[in-house]
């Protein structure tokens, strides 16, 4: 990353605990804007915990707390002055399991994050909803039934809906926690295409179990193992000439 480009998000010595157990150990990383950053590693390596520390979801878990710093555009987000709610509107998250709100329609799901800071005029909402659904490549499939229940959609459609819901409030960063893990290959492919397009407007950090997905979609890759950040660099470099032997062992499938 060029020295003069400000990272959109960075961490310094981030250690994330569950009680007295450190699941993420002193990780210092930088994420350049408008790129896709993949976090890979075997199960339990701490990549999801790390991700959830970025939007302060980690402290919602039982016994979750951190030491260290996390900066969004040079502001440390772990200070008492920072509103967690505002943070989460600037850093959005899509989860592994599609979670549309079951009592809301498709329209209301997408608009869910928009109405939190005051009412907006109807026309504005309509416009944002349509734009978000288009960017999530879902508009054509649902434009005639925006008011119907969101849970009638298929798994892949629901996940794209969640994506639309997340991008509607125009966050700066989007965190994806294994977003295609419960989708079929077609659904997976569509999400990956979207990720590629969305990086134009957002900074994307994606945790994935699937190395090929990381290789296909991301600009940088970070390898986690047992809570520690082992190696980080441009994706092509990590996958062709990894510096660390643990990294190499993982990507060649020798463990994990």
């Amino acid at each position: 990353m060029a020295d003069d480009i400000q990272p959109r998000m960075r961490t310094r010595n981030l250690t994330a605990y569950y009680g007295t157990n450190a699941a993420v150990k002193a990780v210092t990383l930088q994420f350049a804007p408008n790129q896709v950053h993949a976090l890979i590693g075997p199960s339990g390596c701490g990549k999801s915990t790390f991700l959830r520390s970025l939007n302060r979801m980690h402290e919602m878990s039982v016994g979750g707390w951190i030491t260290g710093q996390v900066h969004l555009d040079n502001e440390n987000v772990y200070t008492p002055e920072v509103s967690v709610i505002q943070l989460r509107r600037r850093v959005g998250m899509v989860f592994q399991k599609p979670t549309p709100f079951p009592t809301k329609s498709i329209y209301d799901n997408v608009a869910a994050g928009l109405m939190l800071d005051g009412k907006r005029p109807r026309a504005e909402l309509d416009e944002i909803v349509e734009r978000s659904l288009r960017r999530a490549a879902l508009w054509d499939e649902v434009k005639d039934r925006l008011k119907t229940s969101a849970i009638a959609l298929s798994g892949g459609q629901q996940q794209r809906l969640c994506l639309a819901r997340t991008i509607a409030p125009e966050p700066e960063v989007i965190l994806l926690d294994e977003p295609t893990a419960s989708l079929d290959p077609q659904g997976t492919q569509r999400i990956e295409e979207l990720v590629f397009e969305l990086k134009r407007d957002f900074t994307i950090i994606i945790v994935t179990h699937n190395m090929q997905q990381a290789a296909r979609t991301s600009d940088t890759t970070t390898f986690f193992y047992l809570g520690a950040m082992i190696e980080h660099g441009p994706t092509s470099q990590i996958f062709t000439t990894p510096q660390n032997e643990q990294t190499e062992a993982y990507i060649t499938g020798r463990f994990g």
Partner: protein
Amino acid sequence: MATSVAPTIPDRAARPRSLAGTSRRDQLFRAILTACALAIPILLVMLLVVLVRGADPAIRKFGFHFIVDSVWDPIAGKFGAFPLIVGTLLTSLIALIVAVPLSLGVAIYLTEFAPEIVRKPIAMTIELLAAIPSVVYGLWGVFVLMPILRTAVFPFLRTVLGFLPFFQGVIYGPSVLAASMILAIMIMPFIMSVSREVLLAVPNSQREAALALGATRWEAVRTAIVPYARSGILGAVILGLGRALGETMAVTMLIGNRHEIVASLFAPGYTMAAVIANEFAEAQDRLHFAAMTYVALVLFLVTVLINAAARLMIWRVSRGAGSGGKEL
């Protein structure tokens, strides 16, 4: 980027406080919910306090003798609850003796043997039975059950079992035995559904292990499932007992409401709950009210203890089975 070593864990004092800034609204929300949650234990304490204070005149006058004295004379100001306690225990016990085997049989049948088609209707029937109000049971008991008992069942029992003092004597109709019968019918749905929950919580591995060893279905039940669920079933029975102790309307309509203890089950009797229902409206003086409140207090303490014990037993089985012990 180089890796780094995990730092030593800062001690508790240095750990930052919860950073998820709880906004004012969140705190208000939690405060309201806390108030609601507090209401429940507060209610229990209030119940206790109000009852104790209401019973105070009687407690001071009679003390613990209240529980062993037999004279209940509002005019003379003498109150003894012994016949009430005996009547309560007797009707409940007889009801249990009749209800428990039947209820367990139904519960075991439902969970282990019944074909799929039959399960739903039977389960629904049990629910409906549990929903029938006590006073309706009483109504049916007075006009349908009691005549049958008086004209057919009781004479039969007297003929066959008349050598026992319990089944001798005049048959009036309203009696301890009649009340016990309606009580049995009323607590059956209750014991059935709780036992069923308990049996369902027994892990399948137990069943399969027994069957794999060559046991018949019944033997699997007898040797593997019931022992496993034993404390839960006991809990269900005790819960049923707790219910029976407190039943009021149906009992007062069938028991005859007489303050005396006689060996014959065909004779009228009284229970703690029934006396309150019957005499409260007509009581005149403070001591009479206090005496009945004292009865209510005794009844309350007994049922609280029994229910607490039963819940602990059931909780143990559900927790042990690892399933999210469904509440009754």
